[in-house]
């Protein structure tokens, strides 16, 4: 959408200096044989915007349970859980990086505190929203457990993409500040 373009234009001189991206985030090898994390990673790499990255949510788990030869209900649960774990690992990594960058930049720590508060509030929202989804979902693809994991996967992925965007901008700012400090 157009707002994204405005922000991209405003941010571009800063963003161009940073290199923070999905390539930096190689997940732990998945325990599940049918789950291929590279499908998700390649989709994210090919997508230039946060909006198009949203469309990557679920690609690895989708391929995973389509490749399962039998018992799709059980495969669906296991594959969804594998992608949830994948995103969760990514999110933890990005969140840690973001705290680090903002600590470096902000002498008064206000932004870091707001970041922590935001993430805490998000976790509570995710848990209550997915609990709610478990009782109201129309997907009926499998057990309630799979619905909850699907909801967790989608919300975790969306939050990861949001944090990733922020981390990219913060890294660029940190690099700029570091150069200014070095020049003094």
């Amino acid at each position, binding site marked *: *959408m157009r*707002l994204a373009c405005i922000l991209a234009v405003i941010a571009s001189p800063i963003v161009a200096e940073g290199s923070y991206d999905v390539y930096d985030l190689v997940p732990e090898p998945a325990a599940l044989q049918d789950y291929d994390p590279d499908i998700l990673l390649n989709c994210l790499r090919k997508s230039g915007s946060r909006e198009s990255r949203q469309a990557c949510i679920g690609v690895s788990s989708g391929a995973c349970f389509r490749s399962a030869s039998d018992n799709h209900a059980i495969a669906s649960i296991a594959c969804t859980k594998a992608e949830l774990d994948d995103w969760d690992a990514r999110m933890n990594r990005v969140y840690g990086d973001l705290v680090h960058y903002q600590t470096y930049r902000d002498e008064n720590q206000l*932004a870091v505190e*707001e970041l922590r*508060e*935001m993430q805490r509030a998000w976790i509570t929202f995710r848990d*209550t929203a997915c609990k*709610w989804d478990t009782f109201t979902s*129309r997907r009926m693809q499998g057990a309630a457990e799979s619905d909850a994991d699907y909801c967790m996967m989608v919300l975790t992925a969306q939050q990861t993409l949001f944090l990733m965007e922020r981390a990219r901008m913060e890294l660029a700012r940190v690099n700029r500040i570091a150069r200014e400090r070095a020049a003094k």
Partner: protein
Amino acid sequence: MMRIWIITSVATMVLLPQLAVAQDMPYDPAATQSCLAEMADTDMENTNVCVGRSAEQCADASVGGFSTRSMTACMSAEYGLFDEMLNVEYAKVRGLAADLDKQVNGTSFDDVSMGDRLVQMQRAWIAYRDATCAYERRQFDGGTIGELVYIDCLTTLTADQAFRLQNSVLGL
């Protein structure tokens, strides 16, 4: 019970910045609404692509053309549209949850009523929305861009929550 009533009645209330909305702001919700109607028939999972359609048209048609200022005013109107939608969906879901709770004598599968579960989620959503949009705005240290980022954040999250509740109407 009183406490829950207060919480639900202010479910989506938010203090918006005082925005200088021009009287001739050409906001028309039709573009967003027709997109939503179309997506409801074809692609229910991706209704969020519609969010902002009318605001963009409005900003383009504003006196002086597309700018941060016109987009902020137009996006505020779009926020109003989704805030109202959220209130409507919330009231619907609350009614359905209350009916369900009556059927099972006030308890659900794990002793938490659906009404309570809904209030818990909505309360958590408000805290999440406020914390997220405040954090986003801080990155731009206030200013006109900060206001646009803030109202865009509110609109996006409010629309997502309205869609979430809309989907659960079908499942209740």
